[in-house]
């Protein structure tokens, strides 16, 4: 089990005790994709933020590879658990050209790269030299989301929380991103948590699905598990 939560709960401070995540017990195995499916406001993104270590739960426990962890993550936990947001533009510094943003993970984790190896790598994501000298505002939503994904995959995480990664994008770009994700998973055995309000997308991508209603996470059984 790569990720496991026990009675994970999040209550918003100062919002009349509203419980966004209510005692969630979810599990994630190596190499699988688990879906969190629900309407907007149901609490699925809040759980995603907790799993990614960006907010602290009010109560409950979270384990990564059996080890108890709490935000802010450090070391292997930090590198191992990544998140891809719905709005790719918030993942990029608006003042930097893409080249600077794309080299950040290599610099942070002291990974070897060269300009030409970076260009070769980005080709798989449909990004070319001409994209690298543009700022985020000069790139389309699909281009930015592919860049955000390329940047995450460059550090080879174990778990990626995908928070509505394609709900702002057209259907072809959506399929392209899903294809990149599936391809990477089959080669690297990475695990995904796919947060989506689209049932068909969840069923297409996920082996297991948790249905989310008013902060309550319920696993759905009896579904075919082929992807």
């Amino acid at each position, binding site marked *: 089990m790569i990720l496991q939560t026990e009675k994970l709960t999040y209550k918003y401070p100062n919002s009349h005790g509203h419980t966004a995540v209510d005692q969630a017990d979810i599990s994630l195995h190596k190499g699988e994709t688990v879906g969190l499916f629900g*309407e*907007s*406001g149901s609490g699925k993104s809040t759980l995603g933020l907790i799993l990614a270590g960006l907010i602290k739960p009010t109560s409950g426990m979270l384990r990564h590879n059996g080890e108890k962890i709490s935000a802010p993550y450090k070391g292997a936990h930090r590198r191992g658990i990544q998140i891809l947001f*719905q709005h790719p533009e918030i993942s990029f510094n608006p003042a930097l050209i893409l080249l600077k943003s794309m080299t950040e993970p290599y610099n942070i984790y002291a990974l070897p790269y060269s300009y030409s190896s970076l260009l070769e790598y980005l080709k798989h*994501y*449909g990004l*070319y030299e*001409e*994209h690298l000298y*543009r700022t985020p505002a*000069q*790139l*389309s*939503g*699909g*281009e930015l989301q*592919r860049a955000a994904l390329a940047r995450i995959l460059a550090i080879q995480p174990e778990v990626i929380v995908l928070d*509505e990664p394609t*709900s*702002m*994008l*057209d*259907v*072809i*770009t*959506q*399929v*392209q991103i*899903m*294809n990149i994700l599936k391809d990477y998973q089959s080669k690297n055995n990475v695990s995904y948590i796919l947060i989506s*309000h*689209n049932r*068909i*997308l969840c069923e*297409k991508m996920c082996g297991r699905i948790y249905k989310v209603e008013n902060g309550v996470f319920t696993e759905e059984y009896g579904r075919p598990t082929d992807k």
Partner: protein
Amino acid sequence: MLEINHVSVEFASENRVLAVDDISIRLPDGSRTAIVGETGSGKSVLLLSIVRLLPRNAIVRGKIELDGENLLSADKKRLQQVRGGVVSYVPQGGGASMNPLLKVGYQVGEPLIEHKNYSRSQAVEASISLMKRFNLLNEEKLARSYPHTFSGGMRQRAMVAMGIAAGPRIILADEPTKGLDDKRVRLVADSINMLKEETLLCVTHDMSFAQAVSRDICVMYAAQQVEFGKSEEILNDALHPYTRDIINAMPENGMRYDDVGFAPAHGSYLNHSDGCRYRDRCRERSEKCVIMPPVFDVNGRKVRCWKYDSAN
């Protein structure tokens, strides 16, 4: 009648960016048209060019005629009358589209103060009844609330209410359902479909939403119009290979799409060689596609693809 006539938009920056390339669409009174295409295809820029809300470095060519009057040469004063009063632009309902410091009731009614000389309290009254028309529920309370307390779907419907407040004849809606879940998409579609008399031009990347609100669909790819036709015909029998790819890639159709390639860097078509812009990704390309295809007429439908060249 709004007529978009050979409109091109270019941004003058270090590298010239062509965002809209020679688009023509006729919008007779009461027509309902959706512009469908991926992000960066130029559809939002086209909408903004109609109400002249583009940044200063934008160069717009062609004509945009409102009942024969070219809006591209209208002066500031005339544009103020047109915006909101005759042609209303409804922006995406994301966080930045409303003033966070003003109560929603006032914001929704503001076009009435601007165009119909309403007092502030009259405008708030009117905005409550507008929101009631779209079933936002608890409208009196909502009118006294600030935008951050609204969910995305509510904010989007409030934006539509604001757009129609001063009784414009033409509504331009920019991605009114982006990021919303299915239930909220239906609510927004219902709200838009309540507008029976107005002319609608709606930009979206969601083909099923386009079908729900429009009678005609214009498909854009890489700044150009590649197909135009009745919504039903497009959904059931698309002509252009790109339109067919979109329809097959829809989740409800099984997300059938094999990567052939990615779109060219958006706006960079000026640097690309001539020829059909979809050809690198097209499964049906032929040798002819290195030449830019013109728009062919196929039984009253328009399609920019050599497959439909009657000279074949």
